[in-house]
């Protein structure tokens, strides 16, 4: 069975738990004491990932690190719909990879701010927050223009892709780093849509979409 080296409060681990839940892939989490134990920097873990980072996936001996790379692997192997990472659509595939790289920028700003505030990492907090706001402004404008064209997701398609999964966690957790999303209405609408993807699950710090939304949706589609 797939093993996921996992830490509950990590947004990058969460995106894999979330995606495997959406794809209905069974896996066994291996809890890593990221904090306060720093187990991801321990000798035994560095043999699994010399970068000393979570998450890591082990699929029957095939070991893969980097959350975005793992999303690609999971989609390519387990998504029978072929929609989450459509390898036959060059433009869409390019856009997905563009936004997956963007998600690394969200990690190094929004997630860093959260680590500073919550777990006392020694980062320049003002630079982290300013960097996150810069990215959120770009993301918000992009989503707003997509909405104007009738698209609900990060990449121009009538369905979500792994780019949405990659960007979601450290956007939704941004307030834990003191980064408000009040000025980004298109981001807020998008996070609500992500929360209504069938198979969506939460982590500590993330709340499900309200039941009122669900009802409204059913009525609208009825």
């Amino acid at each position, binding site marked *: 069975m797939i093993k996921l080296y996992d830490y*509950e409060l990590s947004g990058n681990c969460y995106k894999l738990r979330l995606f495997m839940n959406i794809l209905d892939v069974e896996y066994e989490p291996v809890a890593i004491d990221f904090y306060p134990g720093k*187990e991801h920097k321990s000798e035994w873990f560095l043999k699994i990932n010399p970068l000393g980072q979570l998450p890591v996936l082990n699929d029957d001996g095939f070991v893969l690190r980097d959350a975005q790379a793992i999303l690609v692997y999971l989609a390519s192997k387990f998504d029978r719909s072929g929609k989450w990472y459509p390898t036959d659509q060059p433009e869409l595939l390019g856009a997905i990879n563009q936004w997956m790289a963007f998600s690394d920028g969200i990690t190094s700003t929004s997630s860093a701010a959260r680590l500073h*505030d919550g777990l006392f990492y020694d980062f320049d907090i003002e630079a982290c927050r300013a960097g996150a706001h810069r990215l959120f402004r770009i993301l918000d404008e992009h989503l707003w223009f997509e909405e104007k064209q009738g698209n609900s997701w990060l990449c121009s398609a009538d369905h979500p892709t792994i780019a949405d999964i990659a960007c979601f966690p450290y956007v939704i957790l941004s307030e*834990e780093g003191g980064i408000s999303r009040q000025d980004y209405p298109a981001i807020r609408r998008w996070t609500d849509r992500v929360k209504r993807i069938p198979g969506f699950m939460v982590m500590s*710090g993330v*709340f499900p979409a309200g039941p009122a939304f669900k009802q409204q949706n059913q009525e609208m589609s009825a």
Partner: protein
Amino acid sequence: MTVCTDKTVLDQWYAIGAVAEMEAGVESHTILLEEALCYAIDGLGIPRAWRQSVGEQNPLPVQCAYGYVWTCLGEPSGDIFTIPEFFETDRRNMNAASIGVNVSAPRAIENFLDMGHFPYVHTDILGVEPHTEVKEYDVEISEKNDEILATRCRFFQPMASTASGGGADVEYVYRVPHPFCSVLYKSSPMDESRMDVIAVFLQPVDQEHIRAHMMLSVLDEANDDKTIRMFQQTIFGQDKPILENQFPKRLPLDPRAETPIRADKSAITYRRWLSRKGISYGVIPAAA
């Protein structure tokens, strides 16, 4: 020279770091009541703490207790409250985590005392709908120890701890022996005559920010420390956004400021107790 002028608050002992997270001879830095502190422990386990602005030659009062280094910026008004269970030899004592939260210390204590949020915030773990009722419980201020004691608290919990085998009515006892610390006892799934202990020692960084130190003293033979610790972090991570979105951030002590319900009995007692002590730090005092 101190920023905090609340003498009652200044004279308390505060946990500032977990001994298990320190390396002998290596200085750590933190902020307590808006003052930058250094603290360290030597190879024999002897702690030291001092104000960064003053230097090591004028040390602060310091001691180790319950796995943490404690210090006091004023004149210690007494000793650290006791948690006798910590010394029972078959217990697992551990530092679950110290987490920074954008909230005042009293708001965080109040949330810790609240059972009403279990089904909504800790869904499928500490509560589940439709089991939302907070049954009648007792609260008193123990005059002898000057602490709040809430007893006969019961709540249906689907997964009360790592040692739980399934849903059960769980009994809770809450103590508030310090304005910014609370000790929770909950029935142990391992031994019905004993209780697990979960303590929060809050370190006010300033009036609206804390470091929450969580100490566990539990009966659990089946799970390793990591599993028990991660369970507690999962719970705390669920509370965090709730705490950080409370408004106003400081706890209003005026009884008319917020509308309590019957389930808030312990919170009402806590607010009164803080008022009676004349606490002004991290609260909005009631108008005289």
